[in-house]
């Protein structure tokens, strides 16, 4: 039972995380999925949301957006455009981003702007909820 999964999260700018974990829960495009060691090979697009992993009984949260997950029996690789550990999230900035996005949503006429503002809003909300979850779990 001591088998572990290697979880790797990489973004274009840096490697966010590389760690052995017991369990990974990720926000797949078609809903959340969980991965335990010895999962079958699996490739999925990720939505905007919170990824979490369990390590030694503690749950850690990571915010991801615009990414993909590649699952192998002993390894999970996440490729994301943006990823931040709960501890690194700047809630103040996220709140400001939320306000900005809401203002823009109220004004936006064009479809493109609307979609963009909505995505920004979802990102900022996910960031904040990620931080809250992390605080609740006592890992940040």
């Amino acid at each position: 039972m001591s088998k572990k999964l290697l979880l790797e999260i990489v973004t274009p700018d840096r490697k966010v995380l590389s760690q052995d974990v017991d369990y990974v829960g990720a926000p797949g495009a078609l809903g959340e999925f969980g991965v335990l060691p010895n999962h079958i090979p699996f490739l999925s697009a990720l939505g905007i949301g919170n990824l979490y992993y369990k390590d030694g009984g503690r749950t850690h949260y990571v915010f991801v957006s615009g990414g993909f997950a590649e699952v192998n029996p002993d390894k999970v690789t996440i490729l994301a455009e943006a990823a931040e550990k709960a501890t690194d999230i700047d809630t103040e900035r996220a709140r400001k981003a939320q306000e900005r996005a809401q203002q823009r949503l109220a004004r936006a006429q064009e479809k493109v702007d609307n979609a963009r503002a909505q995505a920004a809003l979802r990102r900022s909300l996910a960031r904040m909820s990620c931080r809250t979850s992390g605080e609740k779990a006592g890992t940040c």
Partner: protein
Amino acid sequence: MASLRDVKTKIGAVKKTKQITKAMNMVASAKLRNAQGRIERFKPYAQKFFEMLGDLAAGADESVHPLLAKREEKKTVGIVIVTSDRGLCGSFNANIIKAALKLAREKRAEGLGVKFYCVGKKGRDAVRKAEYEIVVQYRDIMGSFDFTVASKLGNELINAFLDGTLDEVVLCYGEFISMGRQVPVAQIVLPISGTPGEAAGSGKEYVYEPSVEGLLAELLPRFVKVQVYRGMLDTSASEHAARMTAMDNATRACDDMINALTLLYNKTRQAAITRDLMDIVGATEALK
């Protein structure tokens, strides 16, 4: 012959120039280390990305996604030119610009329209002077950019390609090969052809979610952005490497010049002393 004072001022001026070029060399080397670090950090992402794409694209052909489809009849070509914002880096920018403009001329000769997307001030200036149409320009960003810039530009290119404004997109940038070698490269980004991951695929059987097509629809646009981002990273590293070499050469040229001028200064000084002595000797002789 130049007067003593002139030579002395000149030596002073060259010394000051040398100080500047030396400082610029050191700044460029620090920035280069930074830029190389970013390329290093980007590598794992790119590698993994190509692997994933390779696995997916193994079974896919042109008809799967519009970004893969080659157009029979081409009308307009988009050229993305990535250069630095600042000069004083040898022939680095000039080489990229030359390559891009040559490409533009060729395309024009084939009867195609050419539109430019400029990243970096130097390329923009040259393209404007050559009087091509510039659709988008990003200036003063080469100092600090991240993936969002590449993402924005990528989206713009994809949209233009999908709605038929562009039928082909070529990316021109300076590939960073080594400290001493930077090569201008013109690479076709759209339509996507021959993904580099094709050979690198791991050959494993995956379960796909949502589906192969759905995943490709997500991955392919990102592939364009990854390429644009890589072009920007490479150009930025190349720029600093080119500037380092250029400034190193300049510093050495300054040294040579200082040596030559010091020699001239001493010669002039000696000549002046000799002349004065001759005068004095001549005068005492006359008094006898």
